[in-house]
């Protein structure tokens, strides 16, 4: 019987084809997710510009503070939901790195919306609460990673409980964004993760959900 050694090359060719096809599928899948998030981001960006336009109208009779507040909250809520989706896609993303830059874009957006919320609070004496959560995006230390995970769980529970009355703004601090760095410095925060409740109280260590709830309106 004649041996067929060509089978080694055939198997190699098939394995390469499968791997390349798998990688191609993976990249397509991940690009599709990035495109989806990008589309959301563009919508959010349009809404942001809309809010900026509304900001200019706040001192006129055409716009009520209530309107401005509700638009701001609606956008921040949407951005928060998109951030959750982004996180899910990010942890499922294995091949491409593009999603990281999307994360940075969202951090800038959230930072801006936070500043805008502070302005709205000042201008309109609004009574909504803000919870700003600073964390490290590329945290390697397991202890900190676990702490961040529990923080986000606590904040998620608060958001679920309080709904529109609370604005939850998670911002990554290690993405090299100047605006974010300035915000962090302004509150003299040195440890992460940390929480700022209503721009007044800073928690640099994990606390019970009740402690935060007590500080909210």
């Amino acid at each position: 019987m004649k041996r067929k050694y060509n089978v080694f090359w055939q198997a190699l060719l098939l394995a390469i084809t499968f791997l390349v096809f798998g990688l191609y599928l993976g990249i397509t899948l991940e690009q599709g997710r990035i495109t989806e998030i990008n589309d959301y981001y563009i919508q959010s960006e349009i809404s942001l510009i809309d809010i900026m336009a509304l900001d200019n109208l706040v001192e006129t009779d055409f716009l009520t503070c209530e309107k401005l507040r509700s638009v701001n909250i609606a956008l921040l809520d949407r951005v928060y939901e998109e951030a959750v989706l982004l996180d899910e896609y990010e942890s499922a993303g294995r091949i491409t790195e593009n999603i990281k830059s999307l994360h940075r874009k969202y951090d800038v957006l959230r930072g801006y919306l936070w500043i805008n919320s502070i302005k709205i609070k000042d201008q309109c004496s609004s009574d909504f609460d803000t919870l700003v959560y600073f964390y490290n995006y590329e945290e390697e230390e397991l202890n900190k990673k676990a702490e961040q995970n529990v923080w986000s769980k606590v904040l998620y529970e608060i958001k679920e409980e309080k709904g529109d009355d609370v604005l939850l703004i998670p911002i990554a601090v290690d993405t090299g964004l100047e605006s974010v760095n300035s915000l962090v410095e302004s509150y003299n925060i040195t440890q992460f993760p940390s929480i700022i409740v209503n721009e007044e109280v800073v928690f640099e260590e994990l606390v019970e959900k009740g402690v935060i709830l007590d500080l909210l309106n």
Partner: protein
Amino acid sequence: MDFLTGIFLVYSFIAFYFLFLFVLIYFQNRKEIQKVPPITKNYDISVVITCYNEADTIGKAIDNLAANGYSGLKKIVVVDDCSKDNSWEIIQKYEKKYPDLVMGVQTPKGTGCAAGAKNYGSKFVNTELIAFSDGDSFPEKGSIEKTIGFFDDKKVGAVTSTVLVKNRTNLLLKLQAIEYIVIKFTRKLLEFIGSIYVTPGPLAIYRRSAFEKIGKFDAKNLTEDIEITWRLLYNGYDVKMSVPSKVYSVAPHTFKGWFRQRIRWNKGGVQTMIKYGGSFFRRGMLGAFVLPFFVFSWFLGVFGLGVLIYRLAKAFIVRYLLTTYSVKAHAAILTLKDFNLVPSILIYMGLVLFTLSLTFSLIALLSIREKKEFKRPGVFIFLVYEFFYLLTYPVILVVSAWELLRGRKTWS
């Protein structure tokens, strides 16, 4: 792409390669698998059966071989390796039962290994072919005859047969029954690329001139049946497998016995790899495929287990910390958010690989025609085999490597 993803992709590629290799070999040769060359010459043959404390089975094993049906069977040499039970008395009884066929011999002092007993028994053989079997193995009627035709090819040094589990009374034995079938199937496929790496003890037939020329079994090796096959390849001989030639063997029925057997197989495998380490890319298929395949599988198994342990340890620590922090913050310990339901490409690849390996095992299972008393394994046993049994392989690899390392201190 992170490091672990890279590793996963490399593993996937290797797994794809070997799966495709076997699947292609199967589809290109499926009509040849059951074929046996016709007998053109009635080669004389003697069978050496080794026995150590096998009083329960040795008599049946001799009866079985005596009734094997091959007219060229000249002698059955039964070697008692100084058993502590009454094996020797039984052998003597069978010598009287088959005076012209059975010859009982006892090693002067226990050799302590199958190779020693086999070599001792081979001294009493002068036929063209020499077969070896165990005291707890039962070659099926006609099994010898179905191997004879292969020896017409002068390059063939040995012919191996299909080894199956005889006793299938508990879960472990049923799992081994599947494993033996898959191994048998893979071994036959390897024949088509000249890479059979073992002639298992339950029934292996050698051309005596080749057997003696290469220096018989290596008594220092824990798996003399692997070592001698590699030596045959090293010396330019071909090794064939006769699928229709079946032998039923008693497999370990306790976990401890099974574990010890596997450790011995793996340690013997490593000993053989070390012995032939210098043959990389030399000596035909031994250096081109068998040796790299063994070394690669061994390295990947150990490294893969290391990565798995690292991942599990990390997950355990994170889970512990999460629980501690969750208790501290009065937050839920486990929520739906903890499970990412968005699948990654690695999951898809894993699924494809798993499906391919499942298909391969199924083809192997369906390829065997067994006696009616042995039913095909059920779905449950098959799934346990695929999901759990196969996972024990890397663990056995690591334990055997560890034992070998510790043992090597005393060898020096």
